[in-house]
């Protein structure tokens, strides 16, 4: 077990390194020269050369990478071109907003999927079951940003129940998730984010519960007169480890999906930040945001794997 954990940890290091390489490469593949975009067009060439040397851009790419990596490890993600502020601070503030609604969404999706999936597995061919099947196809096929727009049309435009965009008057500094006046701004982003993972997790829950219910020992328990409730509890407990693993994975994907959803709702998270970076072609900001999000995804996967190996004694990985 500890061997597995250690091994898994060590294997994460090259992956993280790879992630930094890709993030570094983002600047390299971006068209245009980073310096000329920094300075005024009439800057004399010798001044540009000086700047170039100052930023280490006259070094070979490999050296540049390690210089950059060294700065990143110290928490220096560079300076945003648009507002000339440190990228790290800006990304972290946005990341907090993203991760909170992502967590709420994924937990919501998890609970609802357990309920729906179990009902569907128990009443196979029934109404819930069919709905779940349809929901699964829908959830996989629907573009989340369109779903977000449709939610806005329904709840903000037609029904006028919820605010369409933003984070309320106070912005993210005073935002209180336990105050409805603030929280209502988060409701639609959460629903839009939760639906696709909900669809997928419901389908998996349905499949694994029905698999367990079809096993011989369950039939034996039934024959012995164990109550249906006890059997269901047993089945749910059995699928927990894999369901939790699923939850972690979906959380990661959800962070990816949030890029578009946050744009629709102008929710000031990393998605909105990325959108801003794209519109202003602020490559350092883009790079920093991607790095943080991908790093988070890797770490979430790591935690999920470790948690799963703790929870599930059947996993004997060497």
């Amino acid at each position, binding site marked *: 077990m500890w061997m597995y954990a250690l091994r898994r940890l060590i294997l994460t290091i090259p992956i993280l390194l790879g992630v930094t390489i890709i993030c570094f490469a983002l600047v390299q593949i971006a*068209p245009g020269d980073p310096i000329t975009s920094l300075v005024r067009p009439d800057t004399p060439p010798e001044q540009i050369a000086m700047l170039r040397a100052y930023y280490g851009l006259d070094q070979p790419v490999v050296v540049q990478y390690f210089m950059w990596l060294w700065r990143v490890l110290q928490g220096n993600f560079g300076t945003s071109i648009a507002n000339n502020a440190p990228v790290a601070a800006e990304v972290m503030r946005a990341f907090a907003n993203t991760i909170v609604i992502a967590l709420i969404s994924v937990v919501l999706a998890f609970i609802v999927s357990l309920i729906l999936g179990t009902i569907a597995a128990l009443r196979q061919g029934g109404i819930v079951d069919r709905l779940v099947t349809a929901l699964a196809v829908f959830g996989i096929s629907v573009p989340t*940003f369109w779903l977000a727009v449709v939610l806005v049309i329904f709840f903000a435009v037609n029904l006028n129940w919820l605010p369409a965009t933003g984070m309320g008057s106070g912005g993210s500094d005073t935002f209180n998730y336990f105050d409805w006046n603030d929280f209502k701004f988060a409701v639609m982003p959460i629903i839009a984010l939760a639906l696709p993972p909900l669809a997928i997790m419901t389908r998996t829950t349905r499949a694994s519960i029905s698999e367990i219910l079809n096993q011989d020992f369950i039939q034996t328990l039934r024959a012995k007169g164990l109550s249906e409730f006890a059997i269901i509890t047993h089945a749910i407990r059995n699928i927990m480890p894999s369901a939790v693993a699923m939850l972690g994975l979906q959380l990661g994907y959800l962070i*990816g999906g949030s890029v578009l959803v946050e744009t629709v709702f102008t929710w000031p998270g990393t998605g909105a930040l990325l959108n801003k970076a794209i519109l202003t072609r602020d490559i350092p900001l883009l790079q920093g945001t991607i790095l943080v999000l991908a790093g988070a995804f890797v770490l979430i996967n790591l935690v999920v794997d470790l948690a799963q190996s703790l929870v599930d004694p059947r996993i004997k990985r060497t």
Partner: protein
Amino acid sequence: MTDIPAGSFPTDKTQAAPATKVRGYWGSVWNRLRYDYVTLFCLGLITVIVLLAVFAPWLSPMDPERSSMANRLRPIGHAKFTLGTDEQGRDMLSRLLWGGRVSLLMGIVPVIFATLIGGTFGIIAGYYGGKVNMVIMRTMDVFFAFPSVLLAVAIAGSLGGGIGNQMITLTVVLIPPICRVAETATAQVRSLDFVDAARASGASTYSILTNHVLINVLSPVLVYSSTLVSISIILASGLSFLGLGVSPPTADWGLMLSTLRQSIYVQPLVAALPGLCILVTSIAFNLVSDGLRQAMDVKA
């Protein structure tokens, strides 16, 4: 929108019991598909969508890029503009028809490229194993460290907008999962006795790959690739939505959705149309690839 699912492909190795009348593998696949009405319906739907897109220049009643300030945001069912007009008074029906071309192109072309590239790498990694495998697959692992939407946004964001960059981006995003599926399938085939028999007859690696490995790896890889078409369409529309696709006057479902967003208070139904097109197309492709996967699960 979901992420790219892990590959699953027929791995059943049991032998089919009765010999059917239909000869060969594709025959039996078709035999199964014939009775799968959902898949057939979606296949028909896709055919219609493709035809509409292909013949858009002849079918669309108006120039999709001609705006008219006088006719902005007409409702659906308007006498002249059947599906209304957008925020610049352009005919929605025409734009949707033309936009389908871009979406389909973005759904299919990157998948084809990614299948060629990722499949080749996967087959090489799976067949040679060892160090070659390690280098290829560990590289792919790094790409798996990104949720696909994020990777797409990262690459497209750096490269900038434009149809070519979008295609490159999607291809790069789709290569790793295809590579992984091809690698697994190849490693499986590679360990089978008939490959050893071919080696024992003195065949070159190239000949074995093309004559024995490829035909056995092809169907799982193609089935998997087909599931990526819908993902590619959604990713592409997402990128266009962020302004990382075609440049403005051109019609594209993702971009239309984005620009119509400002008009949801005026014409919510018109604003929802492009997304609906994406949804229907993507569902159709999803269901077809599902059906295909089931039909291809034929033991052979």
